[in-house]
């Protein structure tokens, strides 16, 4: 068993365990903690899959941003009795049952697929041949430059060295810009929604 394999299994176990702990734990603060653990180790899995930029983004945005946001949400809402909301055992068993069946189905589906054949029928070409000199190979990680260029609309991995009439690939400039605008809108909308309002009388049950 090689070191990468060992690392992979460790990360996979922590990730899955964290996720299950999130499901199992009743305290919302603990759930937040287990979520951090789970997603953090997931970034480790991304590193293992040579997706260094995605893994970094996962750490920065998820663990450093989104989860901190969630923790703030927990802080702002979890007061006293609200911190622990028990679910009924019936719900739990039902959910567990459905979840198990769901997982089984997915697992069996994944196992039953011949991934190499599918990949070949999808593209019919070998990825590594198209990577020109000066760029790191995909297997070696370091995808930052390609991703950056892709976001600026340049697909060096596809267009460089390709015949003239095939240079039709497009990058992700437009989605990138749309996402930028989207984030701005979300920022404004979220602050509008969450702004302090006059309190109304609690709902009478």
């Amino acid at each position, binding site marked *: 068993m*090689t070191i990468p*394999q060992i690392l*992979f299994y460790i990360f*996979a176990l922590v*990730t*899955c365990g964290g*996720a299950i702990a*999130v*499901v199992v734990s009743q305290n*919302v603060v603990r*759930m937040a903690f287990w*979520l951090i653990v*789970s*997603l953090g180790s*997931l970034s480790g*899995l991304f590193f*293992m*899959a040579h*997706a260094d930029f*995605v893994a970094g*983004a*996962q750490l920065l*945005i*998820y663990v450093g941003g989104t*989860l901190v*946001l*969630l923790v703030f*949400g927990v802080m702002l*809402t*979890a007061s006293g009795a*609200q911190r622990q*909301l028990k*679910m009924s055992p019936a719900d739990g068993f039902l*959910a567990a049952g*459905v*979840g198990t069946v769901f*997982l089984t189905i*997915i*697992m069996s589906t*994944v*196992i039953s697929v011949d*991934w190499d054949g599918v990949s*070949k029928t*999808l*593209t019919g*070409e070998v*990825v590594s041949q198209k990577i020109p000199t000066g760029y790191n190979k995909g297997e070696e990680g370091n*995808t930052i430059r390609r991703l950056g260029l*892709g976001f600026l609309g340049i697909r060096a991995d596809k267009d460089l060295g390709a015949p003239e009439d095939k240079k039709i690939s497009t990058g992700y400039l437009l989605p990138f810009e749309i*996402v930028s605008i*989207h*984030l701005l809108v979300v920022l404004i909308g*979220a602050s509008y*929604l*969450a702004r302090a*309002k006059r*309190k*109304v009388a*609690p*709902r009478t049950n």
Partner: protein
Amino acid sequence: MEGISLNSFLFVGAILFVSGIVCMATKRNLIGILMGVELVLNGANVNLVAFSRYSSIGIDAKFIALFVIVLAAAEAAVALAIALSFYNNHQTIDVDQADELQG
């Protein structure tokens, strides 16, 4: 990187996904449901990154993974704002109390 199969990644993604679903289905806390959503999204992201690594889709899957992360952040911000608004209006975070849409 020999020895780690695509299926291993997909199993991790499946476990995350199902955990997220179960989390959403069971938690009465709205924040808990949001966490379930995050888990589901990450389960999907694991699959994307794995296919980027192992199949001929290549770097495009990573682009999508990045977009998913960014949109998840946006979704989290908005959902949290809604949660706070809900909390302000109902003095509780229990989603079982939010049954205004009952038929």
